[in-house]
């Protein structure tokens, strides 16, 4: 039985983004707030997000959290989030923004 090893890599080169589709799990709240059309869809179906993104316990995590996150934490129901996702699909997927 041999021990596995985890060797270091040689050097850092920025990874290349793979194609993706805009959805409630593929964009952070911070990112969505910079896309007016997308943020309008969020607030149309779930106005509570306007308040949620200002909460002190949430603000540090806006780059980490998605619309979908709040379903997991029980603050938003799954139905409006599904509608947001559906409407997102009709928007053009934004270019890679480092997220």
């Amino acid at each position, binding site marked *: *039985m*041999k*021990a*596995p*090893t*985890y*060797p*270091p*890599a*040689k*050097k*850092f*080169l*920025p*990874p*290349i*983004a*793979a194609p*993706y589709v805009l959805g409630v*799990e*593929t*964009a*952070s709240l911070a990112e969505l707030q910079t896309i007016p059309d997308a943020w309008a869809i969020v607030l149309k179906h779930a106005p509570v997000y306007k308040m949620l993104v200002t909460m002190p316990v949430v603000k*540090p*995590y*806006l*780059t*980490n*959290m*998605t619309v*979908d*996150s709040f379903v*997991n*934490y*029980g*603050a938003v129901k799954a139905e409006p989030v599904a509608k947001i996702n559906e409407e997102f699909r009709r928007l053009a997927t934004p270019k*890679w923004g*480092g*997220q």
Partner: protein
Amino acid sequence: MTLMKSRRKFLWMSSGTVLAGQLAPSLGWTAPTATDAQLGRSQSMDLGWSFTRSEGVGFEHPDFNDGAWRIVDVPHDWGIEDLPGQSTNAKAEVIGPFSRQAIGGTAHGYTVGGTGWYRKRFSVSAPNNARVHVRFDGVYMNSEVWLNGVRLGEFPNGYAPFTYDLTPHLRRQGANVLAVKVRNEGVNSRWYSGSGIYRHVWLDVFAEPSRIAPWGVSVDTQSIEQGTATLALQTNLVELRKGLTLASTIVDARGTTVWQRTVPASAEVRANVRVSSAALWSPDTPNLYTVVTELRAGKKVLDRTETIFGIRIVTFDAATGMTINGSAIKLKGGCIHHDNGLLGAAAFDEAEDRKIRLLKQRGYNAVRPSHNQFSDALLTACDRHGMFVISEAFDAWRLPKQPADYANYFDGHWKNDLTTLVLSGRHHPSIIMWSIGNEIPGRNLSAGIEAQWRLANLVHELDPYRPVTAAINDFVGRPMIASEQTARAGQAGRADEASFMFLDIAGYNYKLSKYERDHALYPSRIMYGSESFAKDMFANWALIEKSSYLIGDFVWTAMDYLGEAGLGGSAYTKSAFGFAMPGTWPWVNASCGDLDLTGAQRAQSRARDVAWGLSKLEVLVQTPPPEGTSEMIRLWGWSDEHPTWTWPGAEGRQVVVRVYTRGDRVELRLNGRAIADGKLSAGDMMRAEFQVDYQPGQLEVVAFSGAKEIGRKVLETAEAVATVAVVPERKRAGASRNDIAYVAIELQDARGRHVHGVTQSLHAKVSGPAEIVGFGSGAWSAVDGFQDGQTKTFNGRAQLILRSTGSRGLASVTINGEGVTGSAEINFG
């Protein structure tokens, strides 16, 4: 002192108990004490620090008169001491160490930081060319250190150990004064951090500059074949002069030498070591070895260390799961914080060891010390008791979670702090992964992705034998592809989500619903629950047990902690629908642990006993909600339920009885009469619930598997409180100032049955060689101070913690309450 004597000192210390008293046997604890250091490593500097919880000018000056300051021995946490100006004013309540107006609010558990100063006198009896270093195991936070008025430096990290070379400014004759300023200012943490020098302090006196590097010995298991282990032993030496030799000796737990070698010393010495009939380390068999390393000039020993290690191979694979020494195993894990309940953050060795013992008793085999470097004492306890560890470095990188947190220092310090974490911890066999961060904001941004790579890669450079992980919440980032030069081994050209792409093992925070989907998308990804809700334990473990790619789970949390107040627990509401917001003042602890602040089992722990097979049947009764309300359980909470049938005032009302069992059928009998019968299917997740008309007496529950009875529990209604049981967890304790003893206190009726739900004021009196350092309960709220000799019971229980005064003898404890008294004795010595 000769080297032979100092060697004996090393052996004492390697026995697992730091004998501060013996190292300086003449030192008292009530007066400022000067330490006389001699040649040798790890000489305790814990005793006799002058301390003030204030700021001032000239405190660092050696001639400053600190006669009005208090004398404390470290570990010391001023944050858990009673605040001045205790007040019942509704808007500005001050209760013990808790203040309603504390700027850290719920995050800090309403405790107060501030600035404090420590001063310590010491002398050194050693040759003039001796090197003298001071080593702090942990100071929270932003410490600055002066020797004889000369500033040596500052260190922001509140959890990592750090050292200073005192040599250039040392007085070889007479007294030296070490001054330490500690600033715990602003909102700098998401939990209770403690304040001050809360871990040990050591002095290393080297015979000459040539010495073994700090944490300079590593031993890694490379292979195990037919009982013979091949180890990679590496020793790093610094400031070497010519003509020295390095002697390395490996001894087993009985002290038998199993391997030794002496070679010419060089900056880096490597050896392939073969140990036949190796006694392997695992959670079930935590066998340990020690490598004794000596740097010699001829026959003279210049420096000497003992490094404890274990021989084991841990593998991870999505298709075959996790193994230890070839045997499959799952991580039965819990996240823990560094505080020790009523002691605050003070890291007494026994408190650290007890925490691990308690969790081991409850079936845990893994802890994730969240979210920072833990004490060496805790890691040593994990080695000794067989507890896996995910050692975690950071809670924040560049983007802060709190205005004054570590993000302010990350760029200038991460490399040093991460290096320290790995080098100081790598000899611990308990550590199986390095975590580079928890829920790091910005980790999916371009700069965050690069930071993730740099941290992970540094860990791999320092320790290629352990995988890198991180705890990832919510947004995992979008798929990306790394080049051959950048990717993890075997991952070049493959799409992976940004948060995971440089992690060898993926930590999922609260993602029970994502495991199966993600496994389908990324079948080679090895996953574990780095945090989970207690409420999901049965569903989690049903999935873990059938999924090789899912190697375990860490509940948030295994033991309760101060701060993040009101995260768990439950609340009562008149509406049947809604969302239970976190508790605020007077909540001071998180109230989400399997064990409470005192280490006592909470309801979720009893349920987990069933989930993990420690028990086949547990019966809990929900505290009847106030009339017209229902219980709302917080996300990290659990119903307020207890293993008791004592509910005065509930006569005639229905109460909720919850039965947790591995059986498929249960019967309930109340006072001998069958009242309910229920079947359980797999979908019930080992839980059945019954509404029962409460009447005092005896509730009996029997569990069956098919026709076979597998468990029986009886809950009885207790009568009025008749006595207070005072039960030391151990009758003997050591007699150094690092030795503490826990005493369990319980209200009982005349038949010795625990009386639940009674809140009674208690007073503690101690005589003999011990003092009170903790007296309180597992209550979630600010009730009283922890060091003033009085408290109130919570659910009929309390806890007393005694600290040795440093003298040997019998300590007597008397607990007085309303009409009850109890006593016990503990032998310190």
